[in-house]
Protein backbone atom coordinates (compact mmCIF):
# COMPACT_ATOMS: atom_id res chain seq x y z
CA UNK A 1 0.00 0.00 0.00
CA UNK A 2 2.04 2.92 -1.15
CA UNK A 3 0.83 6.44 -0.80
CA UNK A 4 3.86 8.28 -2.07
CA UNK A 5 2.32 9.18 -5.38
CA UNK A 6 -0.60 10.96 -3.76
CA UNK A 7 1.00 12.40 -0.65
CA UNK A 8 1.33 16.13 -0.02
CA UNK A 9 -1.40 18.63 0.38
CA UNK A 10 -2.81 20.13 -2.78
CA UNK A 11 -2.31 23.87 -3.31
CA UNK A 12 -5.04 26.09 -1.95
CA UNK A 13 -6.11 29.72 -2.01
CA UNK A 14 -3.84 32.06 -3.92
CA UNK A 15 -1.36 29.29 -4.73
CA UNK A 16 -4.09 27.30 -6.34
CA UNK A 17 -5.17 30.34 -8.35
CA UNK A 18 -1.59 30.98 -9.54
CA UNK A 19 -1.13 27.31 -10.32
CA UNK A 20 -4.27 27.36 -12.43
CA UNK A 21 -3.31 30.60 -14.19
CA UNK A 22 0.11 29.21 -15.11
CA UNK A 23 -1.51 26.09 -16.44
CA UNK A 24 -4.03 28.12 -18.43
CA UNK A 25 -1.27 30.12 -20.14
CA UNK A 26 0.22 26.85 -21.39
CA UNK A 27 -3.01 25.99 -23.19
CA UNK A 28 -4.14 27.69 -26.40
CA UNK A 29 -7.28 29.02 -24.65
CA UNK A 30 -6.16 32.59 -23.72
CA UNK A 31 -4.47 33.10 -27.09
CA UNK A 32 -7.48 31.86 -29.02
CA UNK A 33 -9.65 34.24 -27.02
CA UNK A 34 -7.39 37.11 -28.03
CA UNK A 35 -7.47 36.10 -31.67
CA UNK A 36 -11.27 35.78 -31.51
CA UNK A 37 -11.68 39.28 -30.13
CA UNK A 38 -9.20 40.54 -32.71
CA UNK A 39 -11.19 39.02 -35.56
CA UNK A 40 -14.40 40.52 -34.23
CA UNK A 41 -12.86 44.02 -33.90
CA UNK A 42 -11.32 43.77 -37.35
CA UNK A 43 -14.60 42.80 -39.03
CA UNK A 44 -16.39 45.55 -37.10
CA UNK A 45 -13.80 48.01 -38.34
CA UNK A 46 -13.89 46.83 -41.95
CA UNK A 47 -17.68 46.79 -42.20
CA UNK A 48 -18.26 50.13 -40.45
CA UNK A 49 -15.36 52.36 -41.19
CA UNK A 50 -13.31 50.90 -44.02
CA UNK A 51 -15.75 49.45 -46.54
CA UNK A 52 -18.75 51.25 -45.00
CA UNK A 53 -21.18 48.46 -45.81
CA UNK A 54 -24.90 49.20 -45.36
CA UNK A 55 -26.44 49.07 -42.75
CA UNK A 56 -23.32 48.93 -40.61
CA UNK A 57 -21.98 52.33 -41.57
CA UNK A 58 -24.98 53.93 -39.87
CA UNK A 59 -23.54 53.16 -36.45
CA UNK A 60 -20.23 54.44 -35.16
CA UNK A 61 -17.23 52.22 -35.87
CA UNK A 62 -14.65 50.94 -33.39
CA UNK A 63 -12.08 53.65 -34.02
CA UNK A 64 -14.64 56.38 -33.52
CA UNK A 65 -15.99 54.78 -30.33
CA UNK A 66 -12.57 54.11 -28.81
CA UNK A 67 -11.34 57.61 -29.67
CA UNK A 68 -14.36 59.13 -27.98
CA UNK A 69 -14.02 56.75 -25.04
CA UNK A 70 -10.43 57.81 -24.42
CA UNK A 71 -11.04 61.48 -25.17
CA UNK A 72 -10.29 63.84 -22.30
CA UNK A 73 -12.62 66.33 -23.86
CA UNK A 74 -15.34 64.14 -25.44
CA UNK A 75 -17.28 65.47 -28.42
CA UNK A 76 -20.57 64.00 -27.17
CA UNK A 77 -19.99 64.75 -23.51
CA UNK A 78 -19.20 61.30 -22.07
CA UNK A 79 -15.93 59.35 -21.85
CA UNK A 80 -13.61 57.61 -19.41
CA UNK A 81 -12.69 61.07 -18.13
CA UNK A 82 -16.16 62.35 -17.30
CA UNK A 83 -17.94 61.82 -14.03
CA UNK A 84 -21.36 60.95 -15.42
CA UNK A 85 -19.91 57.81 -17.05
CA UNK A 86 -18.92 56.43 -13.65
CA UNK A 87 -22.14 57.55 -12.01
CA UNK A 88 -24.11 55.53 -14.54
CA UNK A 89 -21.93 52.45 -14.02
CA UNK A 90 -22.08 52.82 -10.24
CA UNK A 91 -25.87 53.27 -10.17
CA UNK A 92 -26.45 50.18 -12.32
CA UNK A 93 -23.98 48.06 -10.35
CA UNK A 94 -25.50 49.10 -7.05
CA UNK A 95 -28.97 48.17 -8.28
CA UNK A 96 -27.70 44.83 -9.56
CA UNK A 97 -25.97 44.12 -6.31
CA UNK A 98 -29.08 44.83 -4.25
CA UNK A 99 -31.38 42.91 -6.60
CA UNK A 100 -29.05 39.94 -6.85
CA UNK A 101 -28.54 39.82 -3.08
CA UNK A 102 -32.29 39.87 -2.36
CA UNK A 103 -33.04 37.34 -5.10
CA UNK A 104 -30.32 34.97 -3.89
CA UNK A 105 -31.21 35.43 -0.24
CA UNK A 106 -34.82 34.50 -0.90
CA UNK A 107 -34.48 32.21 -3.90
CA UNK A 108 -31.85 29.82 -2.58
CA UNK A 109 -33.62 28.98 0.71
CA UNK A 110 -36.97 28.70 -1.06
CA UNK A 111 -35.49 26.38 -3.68
CA UNK A 112 -33.72 24.28 -1.04
CA UNK A 113 -36.93 23.72 0.89
CA UNK A 114 -38.91 23.05 -2.27
CA UNK A 115 -36.43 20.42 -3.33
CA UNK A 116 -36.17 18.90 0.09
CA UNK A 117 -39.79 18.76 1.20
CA UNK A 118 -42.36 17.29 -1.14
CA UNK A 119 -45.14 18.92 0.83
CA UNK A 120 -43.57 22.35 0.68
CA UNK A 121 -43.07 21.93 -3.05
CA UNK A 122 -46.69 20.96 -3.53
CA UNK A 123 -47.72 24.21 -1.85
CA UNK A 124 -45.34 26.56 -3.60
CA UNK A 125 -44.48 25.15 -6.99
CA UNK A 126 -47.81 25.98 -8.71
CA UNK A 127 -47.50 29.63 -7.63
CA UNK A 128 -43.93 29.82 -8.89
CA UNK A 129 -44.81 28.15 -12.16
CA UNK A 130 -47.68 30.56 -12.78
CA UNK A 131 -45.70 33.71 -12.07
CA UNK A 132 -42.42 32.64 -13.67
CA UNK A 133 -43.55 32.66 -17.34
CA UNK A 134 -44.83 36.25 -17.11
CA UNK A 135 -42.17 38.21 -19.02
CA UNK A 136 -40.41 40.78 -16.92
CA UNK A 137 -41.52 43.61 -19.20
CA UNK A 138 -45.12 42.76 -18.35
CA UNK A 139 -44.33 43.59 -14.73
CA UNK A 140 -43.16 47.12 -15.55
CA UNK A 141 -46.52 48.94 -15.22
CA UNK A 142 -47.28 47.05 -12.02
CA UNK A 143 -43.89 47.99 -10.60
CA UNK A 144 -44.51 51.64 -11.41
CA UNK A 145 -47.97 51.53 -9.82
CA UNK A 146 -46.65 49.80 -6.71
CA UNK A 147 -43.53 51.81 -6.01
CA UNK A 148 -42.78 55.49 -6.15
CA UNK A 149 -39.64 56.97 -7.65
CA UNK A 150 -37.10 55.34 -9.96
CA UNK A 151 -34.98 53.21 -7.68
CA UNK A 152 -37.43 50.78 -6.09
CA UNK A 153 -39.37 49.72 -9.22
CA UNK A 154 -36.13 49.07 -11.12
CA UNK A 155 -34.63 46.98 -8.32
CA UNK A 156 -37.95 45.20 -7.89
CA UNK A 157 -37.99 44.14 -11.54
CA UNK A 158 -34.39 42.94 -11.54
CA UNK A 159 -34.97 41.06 -8.30
CA UNK A 160 -38.08 39.37 -9.58
CA UNK A 161 -36.43 38.01 -12.72
CA UNK A 162 -33.39 36.83 -10.84
CA UNK A 163 -35.42 35.26 -8.04
CA UNK A 164 -37.40 32.87 -10.25
CA UNK A 165 -34.27 31.55 -11.94
CA UNK A 166 -32.45 31.05 -8.66
CA UNK A 167 -35.34 29.34 -6.89
CA UNK A 168 -36.01 26.96 -9.76
CA UNK A 169 -32.38 25.98 -10.27
CA UNK A 170 -31.84 25.46 -6.56
CA UNK A 171 -34.87 23.19 -6.41
CA UNK A 172 -33.63 21.18 -9.37
CA UNK A 173 -30.24 21.04 -7.68
CA UNK A 174 -31.67 19.36 -4.60
CA UNK A 175 -33.68 16.98 -6.73
CA UNK A 176 -30.55 16.03 -8.66
CA UNK A 177 -28.73 14.76 -5.56
CA UNK A 178 -28.14 11.03 -5.71
CA UNK A 179 -30.42 9.15 -3.33
CA UNK A 180 -27.48 7.17 -1.97
CA UNK A 181 -26.06 10.27 -0.26
CA UNK A 182 -29.29 10.66 1.68
CA UNK A 183 -29.19 6.98 2.55
CA UNK A 184 -25.56 7.15 3.58
CA UNK A 185 -26.32 10.14 5.80
CA UNK A 186 -29.24 8.23 7.28
CA UNK A 187 -27.32 5.11 8.14
CA UNK A 188 -24.51 7.16 9.68
CA UNK A 189 -26.97 8.44 12.25
CA UNK A 190 -27.90 11.89 10.88
CA UNK A 191 -30.82 13.90 12.14
CA UNK A 192 -32.87 15.97 9.71
CA UNK A 193 -30.89 19.16 10.13
CA UNK A 194 -27.63 17.27 9.57
CA UNK A 195 -28.97 15.96 6.29
CA UNK A 196 -30.01 19.45 5.29
CA UNK A 197 -26.65 21.03 6.07
CA UNK A 198 -24.39 18.17 4.95
CA UNK A 199 -26.23 16.73 1.97
CA UNK A 200 -28.94 19.06 0.68
CA UNK A 201 -26.97 22.31 0.70
CA UNK A 202 -23.59 21.11 -0.62
CA UNK A 203 -25.22 18.67 -3.01
CA UNK A 204 -27.29 21.41 -4.60
CA UNK A 205 -24.38 23.88 -4.87
CA UNK A 206 -23.37 23.05 -8.45
CA UNK A 207 -26.90 23.71 -9.69
CA UNK A 208 -27.25 26.74 -7.44
CA UNK A 209 -24.21 28.36 -8.99
CA UNK A 210 -25.27 27.49 -12.51
CA UNK A 211 -28.55 29.16 -11.59
CA UNK A 212 -26.82 32.20 -10.13
CA UNK A 213 -24.82 32.71 -13.31
CA UNK A 214 -28.00 32.71 -15.34
CA UNK A 215 -29.75 34.79 -12.70
CA UNK A 216 -27.21 37.59 -12.74
CA UNK A 217 -27.51 37.74 -16.52
CA UNK A 218 -31.28 37.90 -16.25
CA UNK A 219 -30.95 40.59 -13.57
CA UNK A 220 -28.89 42.75 -15.95
CA UNK A 221 -31.39 42.16 -18.70
CA UNK A 222 -34.36 43.31 -16.64
CA UNK A 223 -32.41 46.14 -15.06
CA UNK A 224 -31.48 47.64 -18.39
CA UNK A 225 -35.00 47.17 -19.73
CA UNK A 226 -36.38 48.94 -16.66
CA UNK A 227 -33.81 51.72 -16.83
CA UNK A 228 -34.62 52.29 -20.48
CA UNK A 229 -38.33 52.63 -19.74
CA UNK A 230 -38.16 54.63 -16.56
CA UNK A 231 -34.80 55.73 -15.31
CA UNK A 232 -32.80 58.67 -14.09
CA UNK A 233 -29.32 57.14 -14.17
CA UNK A 234 -27.72 53.85 -15.07
CA UNK A 235 -26.31 52.23 -18.19
CA UNK A 236 -29.74 51.41 -19.60
CA UNK A 237 -30.75 55.01 -19.16
CA UNK A 238 -27.48 56.12 -20.77
CA UNK A 239 -28.23 54.02 -23.85
CA UNK A 240 -31.78 55.30 -24.20
CA UNK A 241 -30.87 58.89 -23.41
CA UNK A 242 -28.04 59.07 -25.95
CA UNK A 243 -30.26 57.39 -28.56
CA UNK A 244 -32.93 60.06 -28.04
CA UNK A 245 -30.49 62.89 -28.71
CA UNK A 246 -28.63 61.08 -31.52
CA UNK A 247 -25.40 60.56 -29.55
CA UNK A 248 -24.78 57.15 -31.15
CA UNK A 249 -21.14 57.01 -30.14
CA UNK A 250 -22.06 57.34 -26.49
CA UNK A 251 -24.79 54.74 -27.02
CA UNK A 252 -22.35 52.13 -28.35
CA UNK A 253 -19.93 53.01 -25.58
CA UNK A 254 -22.64 52.31 -23.00
CA UNK A 255 -23.48 49.01 -24.70
CA UNK A 256 -19.88 47.85 -24.65
CA UNK A 257 -19.55 48.97 -21.04
CA UNK A 258 -22.59 46.86 -20.17
CA UNK A 259 -20.92 43.92 -21.85
CA UNK A 260 -17.75 44.33 -19.81
CA UNK A 261 -19.48 44.95 -16.52
CA UNK A 262 -21.84 42.04 -17.08
CA UNK A 263 -18.92 39.79 -17.89
CA UNK A 264 -17.10 40.84 -14.71
CA UNK A 265 -20.14 40.19 -12.54
CA UNK A 266 -20.67 36.71 -13.90
CA UNK A 267 -16.95 35.99 -13.54
CA UNK A 268 -17.29 36.99 -9.89
CA UNK A 269 -20.20 34.62 -9.41
CA UNK A 270 -18.20 31.86 -11.09
CA UNK A 271 -15.18 32.55 -8.90
CA UNK A 272 -17.33 32.46 -5.76
CA UNK A 273 -18.77 29.16 -6.92
CA UNK A 274 -15.36 27.64 -7.56
CA UNK A 275 -14.23 28.79 -4.18
CA UNK A 276 -17.18 27.21 -2.43
CA UNK A 277 -16.86 24.00 -4.44
CA UNK A 278 -13.18 23.21 -4.12
CA UNK A 279 -14.09 19.53 -4.08
CA UNK A 280 -15.53 19.83 -7.55
CA UNK A 281 -12.72 21.97 -8.90
CA UNK A 282 -10.07 19.57 -7.69
CA UNK A 283 -11.87 16.48 -8.88
CA UNK A 284 -12.33 18.05 -12.31
CA UNK A 285 -8.67 18.96 -12.30
CA UNK A 286 -7.93 15.26 -11.90
CA UNK A 287 -10.24 14.31 -14.69
CA UNK A 288 -12.73 12.79 -12.25
CA UNK A 289 -16.26 13.84 -11.46
Amino acid at each position, binding site marked *: *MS*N*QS*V*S*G*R*PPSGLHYFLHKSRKALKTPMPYLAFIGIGIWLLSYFLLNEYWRVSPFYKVPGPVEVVTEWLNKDPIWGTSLFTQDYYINIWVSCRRIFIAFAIATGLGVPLGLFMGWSKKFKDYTFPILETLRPIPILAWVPLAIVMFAGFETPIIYLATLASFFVTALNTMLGVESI*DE*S*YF*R*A*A*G*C*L*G*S*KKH*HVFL*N*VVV*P*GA*LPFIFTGLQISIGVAWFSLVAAEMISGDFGLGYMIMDSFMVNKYTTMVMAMLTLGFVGWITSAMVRAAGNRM*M*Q*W*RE*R*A*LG*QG*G*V
Partner: protein
Amino acid sequence: MSATAAAVTGNGASGKGAISIRNVTKIYDPGGADVLALDDCSLEIASGEVCMIVGPSGCGKTTLLNAIAGFHSITEGQIDLDGEMLCGPGKELATQGADRVVVFQNGALFPWKTLAENVAYGPIVQGIMNKAEARDKAEALLAEAGLGGVADKYPGEVSSGMARRAEIVRALINDPKVLLLDEPYRAMDALTKSIMHESLLEVYDRTKVTIFFITHDLEEAIFLGDRVVVMTTRPARTKKIVDVKIDRPRDYRLLSSEEFRILVQETKEAVHEEAVKAFEAGERELA
Protein backbone atom coordinates in the same frame (compact mmCIF):
# COMPACT_ATOMS: atom_id res chain seq x y z
CA MET B 1 -39.08 -22.16 2.54
CA SER B 2 -36.89 -21.56 5.50
CA ALA B 3 -33.24 -22.10 6.04
CA THR B 4 -31.56 -21.68 9.35
CA ALA B 5 -27.90 -21.69 10.04
CA ALA B 6 -27.09 -24.69 12.13
CA ALA B 7 -23.50 -23.85 12.79
CA VAL B 8 -21.51 -20.85 11.88
CA THR B 9 -18.03 -21.45 10.68
CA GLY B 10 -16.87 -17.93 11.42
CA ASN B 11 -14.27 -17.87 14.14
CA GLY B 12 -14.89 -16.02 17.34
CA ALA B 13 -18.22 -14.24 17.30
CA SER B 14 -18.26 -10.86 18.96
CA GLY B 15 -21.67 -11.48 20.46
CA LYS B 16 -23.48 -8.79 18.53
CA GLY B 17 -24.89 -8.34 15.09
CA ALA B 18 -27.03 -11.48 14.77
CA ILE B 19 -29.67 -10.93 12.10
CA SER B 20 -32.80 -12.99 11.97
CA ILE B 21 -34.87 -12.70 8.81
CA ARG B 22 -38.15 -14.57 9.13
CA ASN B 23 -40.70 -15.10 6.38
CA VAL B 24 -40.10 -11.71 4.83
CA THR B 25 -42.24 -10.77 1.86
CA LYS B 26 -41.93 -7.57 -0.11
CA ILE B 27 -44.36 -6.42 -2.75
CA TYR B 28 -43.39 -3.45 -4.85
CA ASP B 29 -46.05 -1.41 -6.52
CA PRO B 30 -44.52 0.35 -9.46
CA GLY B 31 -47.31 1.84 -11.55
CA GLY B 32 -50.21 -0.28 -10.35
CA ALA B 33 -48.85 -3.73 -11.05
CA ASP B 34 -47.69 -5.51 -7.93
CA VAL B 35 -44.27 -7.08 -8.16
CA LEU B 36 -43.25 -9.70 -5.66
CA ALA B 37 -39.60 -9.05 -4.87
CA LEU B 38 -39.17 -11.22 -1.78
CA ASP B 39 -41.37 -14.21 -1.11
CA ASP B 40 -41.38 -15.72 2.36
CA CYS B 41 -37.65 -15.32 2.65
CA SER B 42 -35.95 -16.55 5.80
CA LEU B 43 -32.33 -16.46 6.85
CA GLU B 44 -30.45 -16.54 10.13
CA ILE B 45 -27.12 -14.79 10.26
CA ALA B 46 -25.02 -15.33 13.37
CA SER B 47 -23.05 -12.55 14.96
CA GLY B 48 -19.62 -12.21 13.46
CA GLU B 49 -20.57 -14.15 10.36
CA VAL B 50 -19.58 -13.16 6.86
CA CYS B 51 -22.73 -13.94 4.93
CA MET B 52 -22.47 -13.65 1.16
CA ILE B 53 -25.67 -13.29 -0.86
CA VAL B 54 -25.57 -14.32 -4.51
CA GLY B 55 -28.33 -14.63 -7.04
CA PRO B 56 -29.40 -13.54 -10.50
CA SER B 57 -29.58 -9.84 -11.32
CA GLY B 58 -32.65 -8.16 -9.95
CA CYS B 59 -33.74 -11.10 -7.85
CA GLY B 60 -34.30 -9.04 -4.73
CA LYS B 61 -30.95 -9.19 -2.95
CA THR B 62 -30.78 -5.43 -2.62
CA THR B 63 -34.40 -5.36 -1.51
CA LEU B 64 -33.38 -7.48 1.45
CA LEU B 65 -30.45 -5.21 2.24
CA ASN B 66 -32.68 -2.14 1.96
CA ALA B 67 -35.13 -3.67 4.41
CA ILE B 68 -32.39 -4.34 6.97
CA ALA B 69 -30.92 -0.84 6.53
CA GLY B 70 -34.31 0.85 6.75
CA PHE B 71 -34.39 2.25 3.23
CA HIS B 72 -37.45 0.25 2.20
CA SER B 73 -40.37 -1.22 4.09
CA ILE B 74 -41.33 -4.87 4.08
CA THR B 75 -44.82 -6.17 3.38
CA GLU B 76 -44.85 -9.20 5.67
CA GLY B 77 -42.54 -11.03 8.05
CA GLN B 78 -40.03 -9.74 10.53
CA ILE B 79 -36.36 -8.85 10.74
CA ASP B 80 -34.58 -8.82 14.11
CA LEU B 81 -31.15 -7.61 15.07
CA ASP B 82 -29.80 -9.20 18.25
CA GLY B 83 -33.31 -10.18 19.30
CA GLU B 84 -34.78 -6.72 18.80
CA MET B 85 -37.25 -6.16 16.02
CA LEU B 86 -35.98 -3.87 13.27
CA CYS B 87 -39.08 -4.18 11.20
CA GLY B 88 -42.09 -6.45 11.32
CA PRO B 89 -45.76 -6.41 12.19
CA GLY B 90 -46.81 -2.85 13.04
CA LYS B 91 -43.49 -1.37 11.94
CA GLU B 92 -42.92 -1.92 8.26
CA LEU B 93 -39.90 0.31 7.93
CA ALA B 94 -36.79 -0.15 10.07
CA THR B 95 -35.34 2.98 11.64
CA GLN B 96 -32.03 3.85 10.01
CA GLY B 97 -29.14 3.79 12.39
CA ALA B 98 -25.39 3.60 12.67
CA ASP B 99 -25.52 0.04 14.01
CA ARG B 100 -26.10 -1.09 10.41
CA VAL B 101 -23.92 0.88 8.04
CA VAL B 102 -24.19 0.39 4.29
CA VAL B 103 -21.37 0.51 1.76
CA PHE B 104 -22.99 1.34 -1.56
CA GLN B 105 -22.61 -0.16 -4.99
CA ASN B 106 -21.41 3.04 -6.63
CA GLY B 107 -19.83 4.51 -3.55
CA ALA B 108 -21.50 7.17 -1.50
CA LEU B 109 -18.72 9.11 0.14
CA PHE B 110 -19.89 12.72 0.20
CA PRO B 111 -17.94 14.26 -2.69
CA TRP B 112 -17.95 17.65 -0.93
CA LYS B 113 -16.12 16.35 2.13
CA THR B 114 -12.53 15.17 2.32
CA LEU B 115 -11.94 11.54 3.21
CA ALA B 116 -11.17 12.52 6.81
CA GLU B 117 -14.32 14.66 7.02
CA ASN B 118 -16.34 11.80 5.59
CA VAL B 119 -15.02 9.37 8.17
CA ALA B 120 -15.47 11.83 11.03
CA TYR B 121 -19.06 12.55 10.00
CA GLY B 122 -20.84 9.68 11.79
CA PRO B 123 -19.50 10.22 15.33
CA ILE B 124 -20.04 13.99 15.01
CA VAL B 125 -23.69 13.85 13.97
CA GLN B 126 -24.44 11.17 16.53
CA GLY B 127 -22.95 13.44 19.18
CA ILE B 128 -20.50 10.79 20.31
CA MET B 129 -17.39 12.87 19.68
CA ASN B 130 -16.66 16.53 19.17
CA LYS B 131 -15.17 17.68 15.90
CA ALA B 132 -11.54 17.54 17.00
CA GLU B 133 -11.85 14.07 18.54
CA ALA B 134 -13.66 12.70 15.53
CA ARG B 135 -11.09 14.20 13.23
CA ASP B 136 -8.20 12.61 15.16
CA LYS B 137 -9.92 9.25 15.25
CA ALA B 138 -10.72 9.49 11.53
CA GLU B 139 -7.13 10.28 10.66
CA ALA B 140 -5.85 7.44 12.79
CA LEU B 141 -8.25 4.94 11.21
CA LEU B 142 -7.47 6.15 7.70
CA ALA B 143 -3.76 5.81 8.39
CA GLU B 144 -4.37 2.29 9.66
CA ALA B 145 -6.09 1.49 6.38
CA GLY B 146 -3.12 2.86 4.43
CA LEU B 147 -4.95 6.06 3.53
CA GLY B 148 -3.04 8.45 5.75
CA GLY B 149 -1.56 10.29 2.79
CA VAL B 150 -4.91 11.04 1.19
CA ALA B 151 -6.95 11.95 4.28
CA ASP B 152 -7.25 15.56 3.09
CA LYS B 153 -8.21 14.70 -0.46
CA TYR B 154 -11.71 14.75 -1.81
CA PRO B 155 -13.23 11.46 -3.00
CA GLY B 156 -13.11 12.68 -6.60
CA GLU B 157 -9.33 12.97 -6.34
CA VAL B 158 -8.55 9.41 -5.30
CA SER B 159 -8.92 6.06 -7.05
CA SER B 160 -12.14 4.11 -6.73
CA GLY B 161 -10.31 1.49 -4.67
CA MET B 162 -9.13 4.07 -2.16
CA ALA B 163 -12.56 5.67 -2.03
CA ARG B 164 -14.21 2.34 -1.32
CA ARG B 165 -11.72 1.53 1.38
CA ALA B 166 -12.34 4.94 2.94
CA GLU B 167 -16.07 4.23 2.82
CA ILE B 168 -15.52 1.06 4.81
CA VAL B 169 -13.47 3.06 7.32
CA ARG B 170 -16.34 5.57 7.49
CA ALA B 171 -18.64 2.70 8.39
CA LEU B 172 -16.30 1.10 10.93
CA ILE B 173 -15.66 4.27 12.94
CA ASN B 174 -19.23 3.90 14.21
CA ASP B 175 -18.45 0.44 15.55
CA PRO B 176 -21.49 -0.99 13.75
CA LYS B 177 -23.04 -4.34 14.58
CA VAL B 178 -23.47 -5.14 10.91
CA LEU B 179 -21.72 -4.01 7.78
CA LEU B 180 -24.04 -4.13 4.78
CA LEU B 181 -22.20 -4.20 1.47
CA ASP B 182 -24.08 -3.95 -1.80
CA GLU B 183 -21.74 -5.18 -4.53
CA PRO B 184 -19.09 -2.73 -3.43
CA TYR B 185 -16.41 -3.99 -5.78
CA ARG B 186 -18.58 -4.53 -8.84
CA ALA B 187 -17.01 -1.95 -11.12
CA MET B 188 -13.41 -2.73 -10.21
CA ASP B 189 -10.76 -4.49 -12.20
CA ALA B 190 -9.56 -7.87 -10.98
CA LEU B 191 -6.31 -6.60 -9.50
CA THR B 192 -7.89 -3.80 -7.48
CA LYS B 193 -10.56 -6.22 -6.42
CA SER B 194 -8.03 -8.64 -4.98
CA ILE B 195 -6.46 -5.82 -2.96
CA MET B 196 -9.90 -4.82 -1.72
CA HIS B 197 -10.62 -8.41 -0.68
CA GLU B 198 -7.44 -8.67 1.33
CA SER B 199 -8.11 -5.38 3.05
CA LEU B 200 -11.69 -6.38 3.87
CA LEU B 201 -10.50 -9.70 5.30
CA GLU B 202 -7.94 -7.85 7.35
CA VAL B 203 -10.67 -5.56 8.70
CA TYR B 204 -12.87 -8.55 9.44
CA ASP B 205 -10.17 -10.46 11.27
CA ARG B 206 -9.62 -7.40 13.45
CA THR B 207 -13.23 -6.41 14.16
CA LYS B 208 -15.25 -9.59 13.67
CA VAL B 209 -18.15 -7.44 12.57
CA THR B 210 -21.11 -9.25 11.02
CA ILE B 211 -20.95 -8.80 7.26
CA PHE B 212 -23.90 -8.99 4.89
CA PHE B 213 -22.36 -8.89 1.45
CA ILE B 214 -24.20 -8.93 -1.87
CA THR B 215 -22.23 -9.98 -4.92
CA HIS B 216 -22.39 -11.51 -8.38
CA ASP B 217 -18.87 -12.78 -8.20
CA LEU B 218 -18.88 -16.38 -6.97
CA GLU B 219 -15.15 -16.56 -6.36
CA GLU B 220 -15.41 -13.43 -4.29
CA ALA B 221 -18.28 -14.99 -2.38
CA ILE B 222 -16.39 -18.18 -1.50
CA PHE B 223 -13.14 -16.38 -0.81
CA LEU B 224 -14.64 -13.95 1.68
CA GLY B 225 -17.63 -15.74 3.12
CA ASP B 226 -18.43 -18.13 5.93
CA ARG B 227 -21.60 -19.02 4.12
CA VAL B 228 -22.83 -18.30 0.64
CA VAL B 229 -26.58 -17.91 0.32
CA VAL B 230 -27.85 -18.56 -3.20
CA MET B 231 -31.14 -16.78 -3.87
CA THR B 232 -33.73 -17.88 -6.40
CA THR B 233 -34.80 -15.66 -9.23
CA ARG B 234 -37.56 -13.18 -8.40
CA PRO B 235 -39.40 -13.52 -6.11
CA ALA B 236 -36.32 -14.24 -4.04
CA ARG B 237 -36.15 -17.10 -1.59
CA THR B 238 -33.10 -18.84 -0.25
CA LYS B 239 -32.35 -21.65 -2.66
CA LYS B 240 -29.18 -23.11 -1.30
CA ILE B 241 -26.69 -22.34 1.40
CA VAL B 242 -23.07 -23.28 0.83
CA ASP B 243 -20.96 -23.59 3.97
CA VAL B 244 -17.42 -22.45 3.40
CA LYS B 245 -15.44 -24.40 5.95
CA ILE B 246 -12.10 -22.85 5.19
CA ASP B 247 -9.93 -21.56 8.00
CA ARG B 248 -9.14 -17.91 8.49
CA PRO B 249 -7.01 -15.94 8.00
CA ARG B 250 -7.29 -16.62 4.29
CA ASP B 251 -5.00 -15.49 1.55
CA TYR B 252 -4.71 -15.74 -2.19
CA ARG B 253 -3.16 -19.20 -2.27
CA LEU B 254 -6.63 -20.39 -1.42
CA LEU B 255 -7.87 -19.48 -4.89
CA SER B 256 -5.92 -22.26 -6.54
CA SER B 257 -6.85 -24.96 -4.03
CA GLU B 258 -9.02 -27.93 -4.94
CA GLU B 259 -11.33 -27.29 -2.01
CA PHE B 260 -12.02 -23.79 -3.29
CA ARG B 261 -12.73 -24.95 -6.82
CA ILE B 262 -15.22 -27.53 -5.64
CA LEU B 263 -17.11 -24.93 -3.61
CA VAL B 264 -17.19 -22.49 -6.51
CA GLN B 265 -18.47 -25.23 -8.80
CA GLU B 266 -21.18 -26.20 -6.34
CA THR B 267 -22.35 -22.60 -6.02
CA LYS B 268 -22.13 -22.00 -9.73
CA GLU B 269 -24.49 -24.84 -10.51
CA ALA B 270 -27.11 -23.48 -8.14
CA VAL B 271 -26.78 -19.92 -9.41
CA HIS B 272 -26.69 -20.91 -13.05
CA GLU B 273 -30.03 -22.65 -12.83
CA GLU B 274 -31.59 -19.49 -11.42
CA ALA B 275 -29.81 -17.23 -13.86
CA VAL B 276 -31.27 -19.21 -16.76
CA LYS B 277 -34.74 -18.90 -15.26
CA ALA B 278 -34.28 -15.17 -14.75
CA PHE B 279 -33.00 -14.72 -18.28
CA GLU B 280 -35.89 -16.64 -19.77
CA ALA B 281 -38.38 -14.66 -17.72
CA GLY B 282 -36.70 -11.57 -19.17
CA GLU B 283 -37.78 -9.40 -16.30
CA ARG B 284 -36.35 -6.00 -15.81
CA GLU B 285 -34.05 -5.64 -12.85
CA LEU B 286 -35.42 -3.92 -9.80
CA ALA B 287 -33.42 -1.04 -8.55
